[in-house]
């Protein structure tokens, strides 16, 4: 039974990657289990400056998922490097995935340049699709030209594998994927959250102070699976699949659709042991579906 996969030249012991924004810098989860069982994890979205994020409420429950409008709360790249990563190093000993957000190409470039110098960062995942910030990430990820420009700019300042995280809120996600591929992306990850809204019937106001938020959770799985398959067929670089993955079965399905590795997001918030349990379940589920090596099934849907 072979669970390891290779993502842009770095071997992962297994394809499971907690998604950015659902796993902090790992140390809360390290109190629960040895997080070195993970393939890797993608740490909280990092911006140039300290960000508080959006006002609360930032969370709204939905059928099969939740809306969030956290708004990229993070201490800023300098303190991430000086304060958070040293704490992370005490509990995690594998190459980690850094997640970067920005509101201008300059900001993306500056943050990526700084993270490029951090040795234990294995990949840089560039979020061009965060739907929560007004005038922010959204615009880059929904236009192939802008998406290509960000990719081109950050490509110049790092040799580390670049994973561009794509927005599903577009007419044709393969267009965006091809644009970032042609500007030097080493991989794409998808899907980020769908834009959603809920209204509080008592107050007649949106539940989220930000009005809208990003929808994630098992509800989005079929939408994610379709987009992963479409993008897998459109580009040559690897695809990191995510969106509603909640079980080892879902991981196999996502890999058959075309994912080389699989990020798990919302499920970490519902069951803090989710990633550990999925990793433990994988060999059993692989046996059930007669899979010897996970790499054999990537994009294997007939």
């Amino acid at each position, binding site marked *: 039974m072979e669970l390891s996969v290779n993502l842009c030249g770095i071997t992962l012991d297994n394809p499971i990657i907690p998604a950015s924004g659902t796993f902090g810098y790992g140390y809360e989860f390290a109190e629960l289990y040895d997080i070195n069982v993970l393939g890797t994890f993608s740490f909280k979205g990092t911006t140039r400056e300290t960000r508080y*994020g959006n006002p609360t409420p930032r969370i709204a429950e939905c059928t099969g998922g939740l809306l969030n409008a956290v708004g990229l*709360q993070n201490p800023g790249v300098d303190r991430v490097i000086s304060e958070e990563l040293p704490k992370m190093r005490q509990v995690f000993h594998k190459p980690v995935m850094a997640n970067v957000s920005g509101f201008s190409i300059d900001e993306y470039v500056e943050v990526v340049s700084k993270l490029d110098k951090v040795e234990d960062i294995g990949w840089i995942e560039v979020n061009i699709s965060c739907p929560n910030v007004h005038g922010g990430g959204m615009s880059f990820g929904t236009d192939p030209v802008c998406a290509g420009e960000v990719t081109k700019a950050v490509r110049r300042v790092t040799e580390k594998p670049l994973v561009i995280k794509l927005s599903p809120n577009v007419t044709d996600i393969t267009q965006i994927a091809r644009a970032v591929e042609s500007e030097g992306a080493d991989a794409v990850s998808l899907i980020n959250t769908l834009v959603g809204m809920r209204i509080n019937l008592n107050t007649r106001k949106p539940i989220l102070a930000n009005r809208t938020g990003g929808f994630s959770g098992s509800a989005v799985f079929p939408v994610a699976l379709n987009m992963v398959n479409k993008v897998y067929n459109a580009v040559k670089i690897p695809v990191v699949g995510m969106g509603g993955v909640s079980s080892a079965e879902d991981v196999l399905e996502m890999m058959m659709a075309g994912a080389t590795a699989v990020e798990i997001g919302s499920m970490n918030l519902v069951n803090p042991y989710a990633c550990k349990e999925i990793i433990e379940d994988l060999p059993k589920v692989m046996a059930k579906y007669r899979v010897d090596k996970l790499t054999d099934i990537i994009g294997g849907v007939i």
Partner: protein
Amino acid sequence: MKKSIFSIISNEPLTSNVYKMTLRGDCSDITRAGQFVNIALDGMYLRRPISVCDVEGDVLTIIYKVVGKGTRYLSTLTEGELDILTGLGNGYDTTPSGDAPLLIGGGVGVPPMYNLAKRLIGEGKRVRVILGFNTSSEVFYREQFARLGAEVYVTTVDGSEGIRGFVTDAIRDLEYTYFYACGPEPMLKALHKASATSGQLSFEERMGCGFGACMGCTCETLTGYKRICKEGPVMLKEEILWN
């Protein structure tokens, strides 16, 4: 934090929409009054955070108000098992209480005061408790607090039981060394202003995970950003920044 399976012992209404549930399970991670548990419910994506009312050995008591789908469903359960995260939140620190702490609970802010009162009485403190409600039919746990040995004052907005008015109307004539409060935000804000001593106040917010991972419930304080679920829900009077 611990994730474990609890079995329901009982689940009974205390008022028309407030229920008391007792459960048996591993309570070893519940170390302070004012902490909460986070309960997975069939058909709900997110867990439901509920404050701990009491812990005795492996028996957990929670008191909750039916406010939506999740708590309505919870109120229908009388047996079976629940997947619960325990030991969440910082809880109340009894160290600075002094000899005569004052405990103030409003509505579903009453339950965490019960275990706190028990602990403080166990530490030999003179405990006075103010329980604030809208009207007499909403009053619960008055006798339970009395049985612990606390001096209990009840306030109702309409005056149908105890002192007429708000909890702030009851604290005016009392002397106390410290205060602990839990209740709706307007009550906490009023207490923050009206209280004569330092104290600790417990806050609510819509949560994603309940254990510090998602940053869904962050608030700003005078000592920086805090997660209600992790560095809270209990805040020091001195650090609170009202918005």
